[in-house]
């Protein structure tokens, strides 16, 4: 009874405060950025960066546990709305941003003298929160650009590796934006009434003359964002290069822009088996590919990056299977799985710093929660990961794809054990990591949140917590882990003999192609130099006049 009363009160609060909170959620980061233009604001910036996601967290709680609400700006054509999947991801992302900002402050970043990091952080944050609440095409695209482009400033530092990572990241990002732009244009053009609401354009998608092209472009754009193999090349490079708090928010929160994109733009109300299964197969390929490449790496950050490639594959498979069967529950399930990944992956990146910072004697204090979280990703019973696997089980179905998806947990287990092994052995490569209470407490807080939050959120997906605790469920989540654990031993022993492809693997090929295209550029330059000679240009002038005249006279 009291639960119902609380819910009613929350729904009421959502109706009255929600819209304002949405605007505040998106506006706060930019307001803080403006405040940092003056020196007093700059001095407080680490604290302000921690506070920036709070309105978003509040909005997420209201919408998640209350009722959906929306906000429409009168001055600009901006509409924001928050529903359950959005709220789930928004809340998780906001939590991670808070924790990571706390960590970054402990790490001495984003302070008075670090304007680049601060501005990039706040803009990325704004986009990262914005994608979950944007409800029209243009706002979504704006938020998507914000979560993607300024992140460049979080990745780069002063070494060649990070510059390369930044360049590759930008290339992928701009290409993805381009695909997405064209996809959105097709979506908008296919909507007969001129509405730009995502809901309307997606509803019109199946009947649109450009539906297929639109879907393909949009999916391609989001797939680039979530880094599915073979479009994953930027991910290992960027996460390896970025400082830990940045890598945490990029891998945890920013990438989910692609996930929310899939959730929002796939027309789940229409079963599209070919599209859905295609996406699912791509996802599963990525799930195993990420593991295969991840176990060859030694840098914990790189391993986590490949784990993201793998995990995003599972998410894509879930979304794809949902689309294949026209499953309207798929968005929420996908969101839940993704929300779990937000917290865990973010926390694991922080763990790298925390372990390095903790002295050898108290190493276990930092390491044990990390181990729990890592195995949670593989679906260890009693962890949030198990809940996540449970949530998406129905959507994945029991066919070949479902089986393969379950089996991917074996790969995840192997990869995570490999990660823990390197984490235990390797001192952090992150120079900035220092012993500090604030740093450790940031890590503990994040770890705690990652473990607890899924249990709070799971009921929202319509599942019962007790379902996760039945022996059958426990067994089902445990068995795929066993082969993974079994494989970990030989990997431990003989892993050194594996080939060591460079981080980002096939991106090397892409870079070669780009370098080869410089030749084409030089050729164009020579042609242009010829055209710029007077006689050529003057004759071109006459030629254009003649062609234009002839075209008009013959009336083609």
């Amino acid at each position, binding site marked *: 009874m009291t639960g119902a009363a609380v819910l009613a009160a929350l729904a009421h609060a959502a109706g009255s405060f929600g819209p304002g909170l949405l605007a505040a959620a998106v506006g706060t980061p930019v307001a803080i950025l403006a405040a940092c233009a003056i020196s007093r604001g700059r001095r407080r910036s680490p604290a302000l960066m921690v506070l920036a996601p709070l309105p978003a967290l509040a909005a997420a709680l209201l919408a998640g546990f209350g009722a959906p609400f929306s906000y429409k700006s009168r001055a600009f054509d901006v509409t924001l709305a928050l529903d359950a999947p959005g709220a789930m991801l928004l809340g998780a992302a906001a939590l991670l941003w808070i924790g990571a900002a706390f960590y970054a402050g402990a790490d001495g970043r984003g302070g008075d003298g670090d304007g680049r990091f601060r501005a990039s952080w706040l803009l990325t944050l704004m986009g990262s929160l914005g994608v979950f609440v944007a409800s029209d095409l243009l706002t979504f695209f704006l938020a998507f650009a914000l979560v993607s482009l300024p992140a460049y400033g979080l990745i780069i530092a002063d070494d060649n590796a990070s510059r390369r990572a930044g360049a590759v990241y930008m290339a992928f990002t701009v290409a993805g934006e381009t695909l997405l732009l064209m996809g959105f244009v097709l979506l908008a053009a296919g909507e007969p009434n001129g509405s730009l609401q995502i809901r309307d354009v997606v509803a019109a998608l199946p009947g649109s003359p450009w539906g297929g092209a639109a879907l393909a472009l949009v999916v391609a754009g989001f797939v680039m964002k979530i880094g599915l193999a073979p479009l994953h090349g930027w991910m290992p490079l960027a996460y390896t290069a970025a400082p830990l708090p940045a890598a945490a928010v990029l891998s945890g929160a920013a990438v989910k822009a692609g996930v929310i994109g899939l959730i929002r733009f796939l027309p789940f109300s229409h079963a599209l088996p070919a599209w859905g299964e295609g996406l699912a197969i791509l996802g599963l390929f990525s799930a195993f590919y990420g593991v295969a490449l991840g176990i060859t790496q030694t840098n914990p950050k790189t391993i986590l990056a490949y784990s993201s490639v793998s995990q995003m594959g599972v998410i894509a498979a879930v979304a794809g299977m949902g689309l294949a069967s026209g499953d309207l529950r798929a968005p929420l399930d996908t969101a839940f799985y993704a929300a779990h990944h937000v917290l865990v992956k973010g926390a694991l990146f922080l763990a790298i710093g925390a372990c390095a910072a903790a002295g050898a004697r108290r190493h276990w204090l930092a390491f044990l929660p990390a181990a729990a979280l890592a195995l949670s990703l593989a679906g260890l019973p009693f962890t949030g990961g198990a809940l996540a696997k449970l949530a998406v089980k129905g959507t994945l179905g029991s066919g070949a794809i479902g089986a393969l998806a379950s089996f991917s947990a074996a790969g995840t287990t192997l990869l995570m054990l490999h990660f823990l092994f390197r984490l235990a052995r390797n001192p952090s490569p992150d120079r900035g990591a220092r012993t500090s209470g604030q740093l450790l407490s940031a890590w503990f807080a994040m770890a705690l949140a990652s473990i607890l939050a899924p249990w709070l959120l799971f009921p929202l997906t319509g599942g019962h917590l007790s379902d996760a605790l039945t022996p059958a469920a426990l067994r089902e989540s445990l068995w795929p882990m066993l082969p993974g654990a079994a494989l970990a031993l030989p990997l431990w022993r003989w892993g050194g003999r594996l080939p060591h492809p460079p981080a980002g693997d096939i991106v090397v090929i892409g870079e070669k192609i780009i370098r080869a295209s410089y030749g084409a550029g030089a050729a*164009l330059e020579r042609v242009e130099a010829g055209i710029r000679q007077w006689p*050529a240009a003057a004759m071109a002038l006459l030629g254009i006049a003649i062609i234009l005249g002839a075209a008009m006279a013959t009336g083609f």
Partner: protein
Amino acid sequence: MQAITTALTATMGGLLLALAIILPVAGVLLSFVLGGRAAERIALYLMPAGLGVAAMIALGVWRSGAPLVYLLGGWPPPLGIALRADGFSAVMLLTTALVILCAGLFARANFPTPAGVNEARAPFAFWILLQGLWAALNMVFLGGDLFNLYVALELLTFAAVPLVCLDGRAETLLAALRYLVFALFGSVLYLLGAALLYGAYGTLDIGLLSSRISASPAVWAAAALMTTGLLAKTALFPLHLWLPPAHANAPAAASAILSALVVKASFFITVRLWFDVLPSLPVETPAAILATLGSLAILFGSVLALRQERLKLLIAYSTVAQIGYLFLMFPLAAGLHPWTADAWSGGVLQTLSHAFAKAAMFLAAGLVAETLGHDRISGLRGLGKVMPMSVFVLGLGGLSLMGLPPSGGFTAKWLLLMASVRSGQWPWAIVMLAGGLLAGGYVYRVLAPAFASADLSLKAPAPRNRERIALALALCAILLGFAPSGFFAFLQIGRPALTAIP
């Protein structure tokens, strides 16, 4: 005939149109006589006044919902000359006034009359030419008579060319000479076309011509010649030989105006020609030819921008590319279809946002060159630390050039892409997208080293106040991305309306 003559009567507030031209002309004459410091003061006093006049014209157009018309000397066309301001004219006037004002404020530091002399060469010439340029631009945007537009174009050329070579270096003199001769080539072709139109129809008034025009050899030849002449002045590929050296070597304030406004003037007349004089003819093929040239411009301009080693040359080649986008509007906005209003708005918005973005970028690049003593891109490492605001301006401008939100460039691209999809003209969409990618490349080339943290030696302290001027222009380009729907309705004023949009 009778009906048309009555339609061409002056409207209320029409005198403002004349005033928009009279102000800078009077400024030129006064400055010429008083010279020296007075020229600067006159220019800087007139610019806000001119901005006010432009704003009042825009308000007038907005209030009446129809073009403003003024008959000079009270003589109605065809015998007399009419000035006319529609939505497009009004926004161009406003943009011109804003950019010129900013460029003027910016240039105060570059062109002061030194203490101790009555007058110095460069400031004297600069402030007079600046006002001449302004007068010519206003004439172009208001002119309703093709011969009057010819005079305006010549005035524009005469004001623009000496600005390029104010510093008197051989390099700039050569650039100016090439610019002048090619522009003259263009204007003589334009004049030839105008002569043919007069011979065939006995008038050069745009409004009268549009109702009289029919398919005839004279019209074909005239359209071809006038368009080509205007393309030469717009520097549409492959007629851009004069642009990169001229725009890259002029003083920063002049570069800003040349790239932002001067090339738009001849483009504006091209638009007038095809959308106001010739729309009753079948124009698909010529429009496709123009757009093809535009596509080539995007390709070549962007790739060449990618390969430049100097910042100002990179920005100048980016202008070559961005001019290409403008011409994609022709096949998309031709005729009366459900998508033409979008395409028109997109084309106009592209014109405006490029004007602001490019002016801002040239000003910022000028400051960088002044502060560092050079503008080699390879020497920009660490710029973000010493001149964060300039880098920010370059970034905002780049955002608009790439067509990323939030910016006028994005909205323009969105509208043009929508139009190309809905009209089934796919190639232009692909060109626009590819152009955006390439633009991303050359913007990255500038910004990436700027973000690096290296120590730069400065020749002069970074001038914050002047950086703010550039920032204001860049913010205008961004703000255009938030243009409300009423703004697009405003752009349609004076355009034939599609009554029933299916």
